[in-house]
């Protein structure tokens, strides 16, 4: 469905020296610098898959999405989506995709939401019966009724995002590109949006590419992730693989009867942890110990802890994806081994 082959994007950036003098200089003798935002990325997405596209800030995610949706022309390389090249025959191409950029709306600022959808219906040539069915579905999942008569400019962030998501799904696109669709939303709205994505994917076999910084989005929606950093692909595979491969971190949480007992625990010297393998934090009541499971197995950690001190409550948490990603972003684990 989506085929991305060695995609590159360079930006020409004008370096301006500070001050008025710098402005004059830039006018007559601009000093260009080439910034490589996307540096040869390839991947494939089969029909009906929800791909989580992640990476730290400035990694190049939005730039890739812009190229895939045809609003930026790649410097080199190509992408074929739905058997079409996005920059050729734009009108035909965009008719079969849906796009949401969480950062900005695609709706007409001054139109009431209901009219906006009526406009989109005409533009995308959606049949009346199909339109009714779709609106009903979107209304139900995203609860648009509360604000459907308000002009878009008066909507709150969460309302606007729901409106944008609905707009991107109205014409039943074959591919959905969602760039941070849950940015700045409360938990309930996030849930609604995830539900909408999940449902359209299940019912219509819609292929979805989703970028987000909320890893719960990814965990709940997609099985596969592509991670990029500094314009390069650093991981491409199942979340489960990522967990089993890099998820050696466990978290031990307990409540001490006497917080002074904490000094008795000498995990580091006892198990010979390296700096990255252990972190101990406490908020005065409960203590959180993050440790590397491959250095010290959970059973050993538990028995050592219980032998040294008396605790009120103790629990062990599995590696969570957030921890893995955090370590990956900080480049503490090597992805090439």
């Amino acid at each position, binding site marked *: 469905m989506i085929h991305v082959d060695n995609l590159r994007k360079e*930006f020409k950036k004008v370096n301006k020296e500070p001050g008025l003098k710098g402005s004059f200089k830039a006018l007559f003798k601009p000093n260009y610098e080439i910034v490589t935002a996307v540096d040869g990325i390839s991947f494939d997405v089969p029909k009906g898959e929800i791909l989580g596209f992640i990476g730290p800030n400035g990694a190049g995610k*939005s730039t890739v*999405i*812009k190229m895939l*949706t*045809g*609003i*930026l*022309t790649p410097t080199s390389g190509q992408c074929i989506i739905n058997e079409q090249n996005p*920059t050729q025959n*734009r*009108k*035909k191409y*965009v*008719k079969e995709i849906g*796009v949401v*950029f969480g*950062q*900005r*709306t*695609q709706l*007409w600022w*001054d*139109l009431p939401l209901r*009219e906006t959808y*009526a*406009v989109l219906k*005409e*533009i*995308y*040539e959606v049949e009346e019966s199909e339109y009714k069915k779709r609106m009903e579905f979107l209304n139900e999942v995203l609860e648009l009724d509360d604000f459907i008569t308000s*002009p878009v400019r008066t909507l709150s962030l969460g309302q606007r995002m729901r409106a944008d998501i609905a707009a991107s799904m109205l014409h039943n696109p074959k591919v959905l590109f969602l*760039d*941070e669709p849950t940015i700045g939303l409360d938990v309930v709205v996030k849930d609604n949006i995830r539900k909408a994505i999940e449902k359209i994917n299940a019912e219509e076999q819609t292929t979805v590419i989703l970028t987000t910084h909320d890893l719960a989005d990814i965990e709940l929606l997609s099985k596969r992730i592509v991670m990029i950093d500094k314009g390069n692909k650093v991981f491409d595979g199942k979340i489960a693989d990522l967990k089993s491969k890099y998820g050696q971190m466990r978290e031990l949480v307990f409540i001490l009867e006497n917080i002074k007992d904490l000094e008795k625990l000498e995990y580091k010297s006892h198990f010979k942890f390296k700096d990255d393998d252990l972190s101990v934090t406490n908020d005065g009541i409960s203590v959180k110990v993050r440790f590397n499971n491959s250095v010290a197995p959970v059973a050993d950690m538990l028995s050592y802890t219980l032998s040294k001190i008396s605790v009120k409550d103790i629990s062990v948490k599995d590696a969570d994806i957030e921890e893995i990603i955090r370590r990956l972003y900080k480049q503490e684990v090597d992805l090439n081994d």
Partner: protein
Amino acid sequence: MTKRLKIYTPFISAGIQETATYRVDLIFYLLGDVLACFVSYFIWKAVFISSESEFLHGFTMPQMIVYIFLMFLTSLLIYSDGTYNIGEEIRDGSIAMRMLKPVSYNATFLFQEIGNKLVTNVILIIPLVAGVEVVRTYVTGEIQFNILHFVLYLISCVMAYLINFFFNICFGFIAFIIKYLWGANMMKNCVVGFLSGAIIPLAFLPDTLEKVFLFLPFSSLNYTPVMIYMGMYNSSQTAFYLGLQLFWVLFFWGLSKLLWSGASKRLSVQGG
């Protein structure tokens, strides 16, 4: 064809609602123009009073007054701010949102602006034409209104608007490609004002200059419709200048397509 037009009707209604939302802006904008019109009137009055003869380059003082008010009316009717809008959209990246819709980029702009203009022009045209005719009757001493001239004037205005629209779009794309919009836009407005006869009638210029200017696209903007309205052209001249207008419409329409394909490759939609 009707189906294709139907796609764009929502943009007209979007444009109408937009104008309705910002109607106070519109009033202030109009007041500014009316003021400029009167300033121009007093300057020309002074010029005629200080001159010895009754005719200045074929214009009598009453005709000059009518010319000024007609120029004002015409400029209003054919006004287009495509350059500004395109510049803004490119700068803040919202142009991307238009590109994501399966519609022609230029056409969405055109129909949205037609929506805007529908409101302003329909509201304005009757009182303004009536006003111009009252002034005209008063200064010339007899009723001059000619329905044929008026209809031809409206046709000429539609074409003038289209030339203005596509010219501005082209200019916006060029300014984007050379990345220098603001100064260029200021300069454009001055030059166009002069070349289109909005500042002084082209007939006041030296003969060779006048001939050159009449062939440039800018005289097709304000000058042609005004001259038609005033009955300054005979029928063959009218046909010729309407034909010339049509030529320029097609020319800039084609050019805008060409420039858009160049500009779209260079877009660097920022943010996100």
